């Protein structure tokens, strides 16, 4: 079984985003960029499924600028087999990404598409579900455990009330949550080896997908800032303040 893992190049998890003065977006010039953390978890899970013998090949795909090559190389260094870059300098919304991925799914026929549940830049949490709709496949979102069982995959999902397990008919779409696994670091030999792994470069036009945005961002602002309050000297002071707030009698 082939596994397809879409990955996105985003602002690094540890960088504090700064809103541009002109209100058009978040300033990404000279900011460290990395693979979206949830996608890293998806790559790791695909590798583990391959190591367990449940998968035969791992294809990674990214929709993004030329620099998204670096993100794909990272996935190859972790253990993916080959990569597809669908290159565009335009910002692409989840619906259009899902349409591009549908075209890739039609070509590659993966048994499982493993995606991060959301990207930490736009925080949309949509692409996997949309891809599932477009391909007519079942979806196991927010996965904390994945088990392939014959013609089905059992996915344990992190839901508001705790954990929930669903069984999906393969082929299926699965999106990862934080506690699915801890991604490995690529070793130096594997980083070297990744440089020679195949990477195809395509454009959205190659798949005949219209990527025009449906949403227009009118402005981007910093949220209202909280003022730092006071540091108290003792528990008694805190008890007094909490009583003033009416939290306790």
């Amino acid at each position, binding site marked *: 079984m082939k596994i397809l893992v879409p990955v996105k190049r985003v602002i690094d998890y540890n960088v504090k*985003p700064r809103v541009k003065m002109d209100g058009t977006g*978040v300033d990404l010039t000279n900011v460290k960029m990395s693979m979206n953390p*949830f996608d890293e978890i998806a790559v790791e899970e695909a590798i583990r499924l391959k190591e367990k013998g449940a998968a035969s090949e791992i294809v990674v795909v990214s929709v993004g600028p030329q620099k998204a090559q670096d993100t794909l190389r990272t996935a190859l260094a972790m253990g993916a087999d080959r990569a597809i870059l669908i290159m565009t300098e335009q910002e692409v*919304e*989840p*619906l259009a990404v899902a349409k591009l991925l549908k075209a890739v799914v039609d070509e590659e026929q993966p048994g499982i598409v493993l995606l991060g549940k*959301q990207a*930490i830049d*736009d*925080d*949309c949490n*949509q*692409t996997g*579900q*949309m*891809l*599932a*709709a*477009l391909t007519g*496949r*079942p*979806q*196991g*979102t*927010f996965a904390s455990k994945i088990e392939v069982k014959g013609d089905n995959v*059992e996915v344990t999902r*992190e*839901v*508001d*009330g*705790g*954990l*929930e*397990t*669903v*069984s*999906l*008919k393969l082929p299926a779409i699965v999106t990862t949550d*934080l*506690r699915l696994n801890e991604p490995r670091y690529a070793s130096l030999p594997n980083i070297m080896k990744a440089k020679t792994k195949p990477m195809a470069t395509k454009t959205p036009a190659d798949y005949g997908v219209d990527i025009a945005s*449906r*949403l*227009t*961002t*009118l*402005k*981007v602002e*910093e*949220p209202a800032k*909280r003022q*730092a*309050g*006071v*540091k*108290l000297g003792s528990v*008694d002071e*805190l*008890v007094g303040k909490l009583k003033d*707030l009416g*939290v306790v009698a």
Partner: protein
Amino acid sequence: MSVLVLVEHEGGAIKDASLSTITAAQKLGEVHALIAGSGAEAKQAADAAAKISGVTKVLLADDAAYANMLAENVAPLIAGMMSGYDALLCNATSVGKNVAPRVAAMLDVMQVSDVLSVESADTFTRPIYAGNAVATVKSSDAKKVLTVRGTAFAKAAASGGNASVETVGGGGDAGLSSYVGAETSKSERPELTSAKVVVSGGRALGSSEDFHRVIDPLADKLGAAVGASRAAVDAGYAPNDYQVGQTGKIVAPEVYVAVGISGAIQHLAGMKDSKVIVAINKDEDAPIFQVADLGLVGDLFQIVPELTQKL
């Protein structure tokens, strides 16, 4: 404009988050509530939804296939109903986040996730970058699909309405997925996302035993829900449904008490709209103090028991 709201329910009762979503929906137009579920509980939920102030019609889809809100079954049901509506609103909960994008793609609509405010019929604000920025977006799609952040809207009154209940049918079981089971945390405490007071613990608690030994009595004293940072959940001190943050739950209680939480931006994203933030941490430079109204620097293992006892 006519708006369909997917109303979440449990044990025949309407979830609080849906009451907030109904308030958001009322800003767009006439509100119909969809109750998808199975049997007596769904019927009871439909009767409860009919009483919600602002709901003019309730649509009840009663089928075993909808009992567990499997997206493969519920999304086609909703998509099939959308010819009669201009907008679909769902909660930004694990159910809404799972179902809404599947419907949106079926309708060829780009969803607006996590709506914080309705500026006009096609313009909304939403958080991006873990809430470090707020974007105002205008949708050009003919129909809108939104998920709504519950803490950003007041709850609609659960009584006062008198809507009619109609039965609707859908395709039932799509045959793609089945529900295996759930492990849900049962607790006597209030629900995390709607509690007036939340006490959250971080990695500094050091173990699951200490997490519960220190945090639970304080929460009990305050009648509070218990939350946790991602670090504490990852370390296994607390279950996943306690997690507050960018990818966990979003809370905005009257009082949020952060115990041994340093305050990573991802955590702040989930609680910075709380009215009063209290931080207890031994590191006086911890970022949590930059957003806390009341801070106490010191050893939580001494401070929290003392606080619990003195309250």
